[in-house]
């Protein structure tokens, strides 16, 4: 095992992937706690499909993928938040419509442009080989921003997540905080997609929070545990993916699943 690990660190692209992965896992876990508790968990899923659609179009039209995707995904994130506020359309059905439509658009754009090539496949299931130095820089900046937001606004985020109405009634700008969370989630998903793939990235948002909640019942502990679990799962996942030559995204998700089941069982035993 030690040999494997030493070997892994001798490849620069793997070191890059590990750093990006840890940063993205941390970001997703932090945002995930808020999203899951606000019952927005599915937004992550919807956004990842939308970013697949936009990235496919960008590839088909030879546009810069990130530059094209990020604004669109952010706009969609805002729209989804608005749907939540109005009572008429149910968020979960809206997201299902959006997810499948984006996927369909992506698939059509791809096949019009000559079918599934390696780039599109990478966007669907992730590839650590496709990670660039830009990905590294962007994920580092994003991680710094998200961690700062969580430190500075921790108490506000708690108050709004716990009871949005009473926070709003007492004059807090809940729209601003929701928008902030939506934008950061959108960024996180677009950035994490090269690594995890659009089909799998939303699991990084949902799993760690749920896993932490199986065992811990205070907000602070849930936030810390989710972050830690998320990073550990990524490391385990990339190690397994290296040793058994399976896609990184998939093995990270499986590591998360394993941890979830383990925490769930522990939670039952302790009760």
């Amino acid at each position, binding site marked *: 095992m030690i040999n494997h690990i030493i070997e892994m660190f001798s490849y620069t692209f793997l070191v890059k992937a590990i750093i990006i992965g840890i940063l993205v896992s941390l970001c997703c876990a932090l945002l995930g706690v808020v999203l899951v*508790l606000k*019952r927005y968990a599915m937004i992550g899923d919807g956004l990842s499909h939308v970013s697949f659609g936009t990235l496919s179009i960008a590839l088909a039209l030879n546009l810069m993928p990130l530059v094209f995707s990020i604004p669109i995904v952010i706009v969609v994130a805002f729209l989804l938040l608005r749907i939540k506020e109005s*009572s*008429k359309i149910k968020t979960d059905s809206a997201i299902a419509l959006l997810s499948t439509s984006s996927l369909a658009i992506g698939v059509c754009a791809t096949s019009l442009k000559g079918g599934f090539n390696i780039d599109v496949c990478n966007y669907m299931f992730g590839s650590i080989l496709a990670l660039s130095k830009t990905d590294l820089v962007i994920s580092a900046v994003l991680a710094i921003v998200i961690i700062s937001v969580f430190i*500075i*606004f921790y*108490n*506000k985020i*708690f*108050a709004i997540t*716990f*009871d949005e*109405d*009473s*926070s*709003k*009634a*007492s*004059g*807090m*700008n809940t729209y601003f905080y929701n928008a902030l969370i939506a934008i950061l989630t959108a960024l996180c998903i677009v950035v994490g997609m090269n690594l995890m793939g659009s089909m799998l990235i939303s699991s990084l948002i949902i799993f760690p929070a749920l896993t932490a*909640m199986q065992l*811990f*019942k*205070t*907000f*602070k*502990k*849930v936030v810390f545990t989710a972050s830690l679990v998320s990073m550990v799962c990524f490391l385990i996942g990339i190690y397994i993916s290296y040793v058994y030559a399976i896609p990184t995204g998939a093995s990270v998700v499986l590591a998360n699943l394993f941890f979830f089941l383990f925490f769930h069982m522990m939670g039952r035993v302790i009760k």
Partner: protein
Amino acid sequence: MKQIEVKQLQVFYDKKRVLTDISFDVYSKDYIAIVGDNGSGKSTLLKALLGLVPSKGMINFNVKKNEIGYLAQKDNSLKQFPASVFEVVLSGCIGQFKFFYNKHDKEKALQALKKFKIEHLKNKNFSELSGGQMQRVLLAKTLCTTKKVLVLDEPTTGLDSKTIKDFYKIIDDLNKEGITILMVTHDIEASLLHANKILHINNTMHFFDTTDKYRECEKCSLVRDMYD
């Protein structure tokens, strides 16, 4: 001093009109009980006042938003939230321009816990409390937020009779200290005893005046029902 002025307030949900023609004034130190049947729009009125649902008409506030504490009608979605009781109560101290809690806030949160006799639950998990205990924690949280106006929607739901008695005492004391109270309730008897004004709505203004006048009010069925 006139703290809240409401004129010709209307609220629609989608196309359905829930409130029409609501006008009333709230003065500082008022203790207004808001009564009416299920579905008469009491909760909606509070939400419209606080800007949580869109409305037409005029609402004028002479108090700052961050001086208002609001406790919504009990909803069960909070049940699963991972938080300690103290985390919840302390979160009531957060303000518009405030990011971190100081010693004073923690002291205030402790006092609020003591008022509702739940200081022993301080480190318990919120999601593992009984319904009545949860309600007391939420009341304590709301107390921490309140500086001038306290808005409560059926606050005594799920409380035992002893706690309800304590609760009315706490609210009376706050009112004497100068806090304005707006409370939705189905407890007419207690309203007549504690409030100085009654606002009775049935999707429109049915009655708004002092408690004494309400007792003699002919059209106010709720009172008649009570003496039947």
